């Protein structure tokens, strides 16, 4: 009960929805409540979870980023092609290349925002096309089949952390994807809650000017934040490529909205200053529950966005309306 009181209303609301949904689905279909579902959920949501941490950090700092899928695919795909070209089979190098690219592109985003002083949304929207176009020109858009992937990708794709047998005697396992996911989540938690930079991120989102007056270098902070988001995107790029069977570098673009949706559902304030990791995780879980399990309800996965949209609308309307009432009291008119 004490834990229940510690989380905010949005998280309570999400917990209830997820629980109710799980109960309903498992009553309809017994196959749902199995380890297979859980393991699938972990594997398929890995990439989004990592990206959502980056989006969360940026959103807490009062910004928004829509270029991260382009950054992720730039990093991941370039790294893949380099590894293929030079026959590199080291997992470390693969990640290193991808992360390096991610950092550079993220920092470029921040520099542009610092320089142009415009809505991060518009700027990252343009850099998203630039990054993506640049990648296709520099690296190409060749599809890479699963069999052509270098060994480290294959390993990453198939390696299991825990294996067990299911009811039918088949072997199922928890993908190693869980390792980078847990690392990223823990790192983000540590960054936000245990470091001075974390305090700066919250401060910046609450009141940019006050953060500057308090002695934070907000431009530097922004570079760090977008760089960090770039690191996460780089990691996600590699995982994404390992996770799909045939790598089509065009496929990831357009997913930015669903990741942002997960973070917003999780209760992060779009105007900055507030956001919870647990809430974001719940948002991602909900998204992938709809994605993976609507079929158990006899609905096609096509309805996923519809349900996501309803939850999203409900959550933003209720939080924004409460803020509006409070603002009205202070004669702040925010429509």
């Amino acid at each position, binding site marked *: 009960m004490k834990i229940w009181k510690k989380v905010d209303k949005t998280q309570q609301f999400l917990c209830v929805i997820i629980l109710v949904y799980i109960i309903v689905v498992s009553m309809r279909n017994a196959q749902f409540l199995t380890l297979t579902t859980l393991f699938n959920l972990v594997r398929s949501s890995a990439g989004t979870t990592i990206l959502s941490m980056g989006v969360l950090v940026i959103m807490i700092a009062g910004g928004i980023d829509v270029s991260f899928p382009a950054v992720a695919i730039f990093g991941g795909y370039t790294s893949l092609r380099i590894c293929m070209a030079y026959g590199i089979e080291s997992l470390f190098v693969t990640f290193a290349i991808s992360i390096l690219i991610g950092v550079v592109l993220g920092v470029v985003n921040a520099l542009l925002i610092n320089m142009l002083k415009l809505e991060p949304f518009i700027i990252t929207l343009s850099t998203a096309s630039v990054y993506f176009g640049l990648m296709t020109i520099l690296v190409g858009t060749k599809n890479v089949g699963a069999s052509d992937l270098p060994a480290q990708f294959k390993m990453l794709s198939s390696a299991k952390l825990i294996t067990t047998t299911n009811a039918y005697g088949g072997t199922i396992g928890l993908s190693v994807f869980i390792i980078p996911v847990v690392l990223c989540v823990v790192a983000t938690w540590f960054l936000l809650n*245990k*470091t*001075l*930079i*974390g*305090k*700066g991120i*919250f*401060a910046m*989102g*609450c*009141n940019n*000017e*006050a*953060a*500057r*007056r*308090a*002695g*934070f*270098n907000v431009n530097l902070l922004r570079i760090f934040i977008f760089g960090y988001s770039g690191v996460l995107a780089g990691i996600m790029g590699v995982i994404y490529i390992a996770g799909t069977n045939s790598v089509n570098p065009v496929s990831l673009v357009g997913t930015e909205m669903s990741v942002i949706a997960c973070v917003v559902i999780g209760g992060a*304030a779009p105007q900055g*200053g*507030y956001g919870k990791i647990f809430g974001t995780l719940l948002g991602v879980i909900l998204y992938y529950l709809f994605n993976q399990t609507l079929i158990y309800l006899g609905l096609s996965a096509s309805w996923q966005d519809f349900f996501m949209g309803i939850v999203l609308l409900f959550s933003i309307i209720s939080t924004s309306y409460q803020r509006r009432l*409070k603002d009205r*009291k202070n*004669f702040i*008119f925010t429509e």
Partner: protein
Amino acid sequence: MTNANHIVVAEHICKSYVGVQALDDVSIRIKEGEIKCLAGENGCGKSTFVKIIAGVESCTSGTIQINGKNLTKHTAKDAIDEGIQVIFQDLSLFDSMSVADNIAMNKLIKEGKPFTHKKEIEKIAQDALSLIGVEMPLDTQVKELSIANRQIIAICRALALDAKLLFMDEPTTALTKNEVDSLLDIVLGLKKRNIAVVFISHKLDEVMRIADSITVIRDGHKIGDFSADELDPKKLAFYMTGREVNYQKYERGYEDQQNVLEVKHLSKKGNYQDISLSVRKGDILGLTGLLGAGRTELALSVFGLNKPDSGEIYFEGNKVEINSPEDAIDLGIGLVPEEREAQGLFLKKSVNENVAAAILKRLKGFMGNIDSNGSRTLSKEAIEQFRIKVYSEDTIISTLSGGNRQKALIARWAASKPKLFILDNPTVGIDIGSKAEIYEYIQQFAKDGIGVIIISDEVEEIVSNCNRVVVMFNGEVVKEYTEEEMQVPNIRQQINELVESGKITEEGGQQA
């Protein structure tokens, strides 16, 4: 030039913004353990000076030495490292963060330890709070707290850092007398610890009286250093405004005694309670009180932006419901808001567009089209009538000075032909010349039979322009001065005391 006892030596500071020369050749020195007051009218450049010393803004030219070091182009962090702390008027707190985080923030930044611990943060906060003997829940978000408590947090944040010099920008505008007294106790305590405190203020009040020296700034120039005994309100006003304040006193001469506005038992929870007052044609009613006493809140209720919980509003004798500014304008109410730039002007638009903004409905032709020639003629007339200094009506308004901007704003509402005109702090940050002109226009409005309400902090403004005055305290009307009572010679002092204490003392009390 270096003096071991001086914390700050600022020489020949100049600062220009677009459209304004905020500071011109200002030199100020601040000693250890000194209580200093920077006095000047709103917009004279005193806040800019503080921002420059605090490293938030950089000066255009001039030199600054802090603790003997040359730090002319320093950052906020440099200033903090040298023990300079500023409590800004907006307090610069982080609303969604906890009390502990807010208090500890500056210390954490100064120490620059990359990792933070919740226990340590709470200890810093607790220590700072106990320095001034206040208890507060450390986990609460700052946005849940009252203004006075937020101020305490801002002070604690500075104390947590062992500040050597503390700037406080208008610390008393929102505080009641008791709260001011406890603030003064805290400040005297700081002086004993050899911490210098600089107040920024535009009134000669208690705060200024405990100051060791007072520096007056006017229009970006330093006028001089004085001691508190040298100054009385009149002298201070003279130094701040640069002329003997002797505005034409307004006397109502209008025959028609009909009420334009009458409010009866108006209440809004948390804003004001049981307000009854009336404005006749040709009245200029002064509405004064501390910030947060409910004056602006009441005015916004009349203007349809703050729906009252109970009570009645009568306009020209008829009971009315005002639910939006549109309703108010339809009735004939105009309001010049408190924050000229944020709430009033469209800075990137032309004078013409700014003047025409409130009368779009009237400019609408029969096809629903806007009569642009009509609005142009109207703006030209307004520019002439209010002597707005521009090349043409197409000049972008952000290029004008504060006084001309305010005149354009007044012209906007004059064009709407109001029957009731509310002006919220109409001369904040405006030069003396324009100020006198604006008073002249306001008095002319009243002579033409418009009911006028002036909300103001400046007693001088109220006394010279209003034939009746209502003083509010803590959301209630404590006293209404009639036309006869306004004739008393010590009326300024009476009002001043009442505004701060909320209590009526005999014969206006003693002059300190």
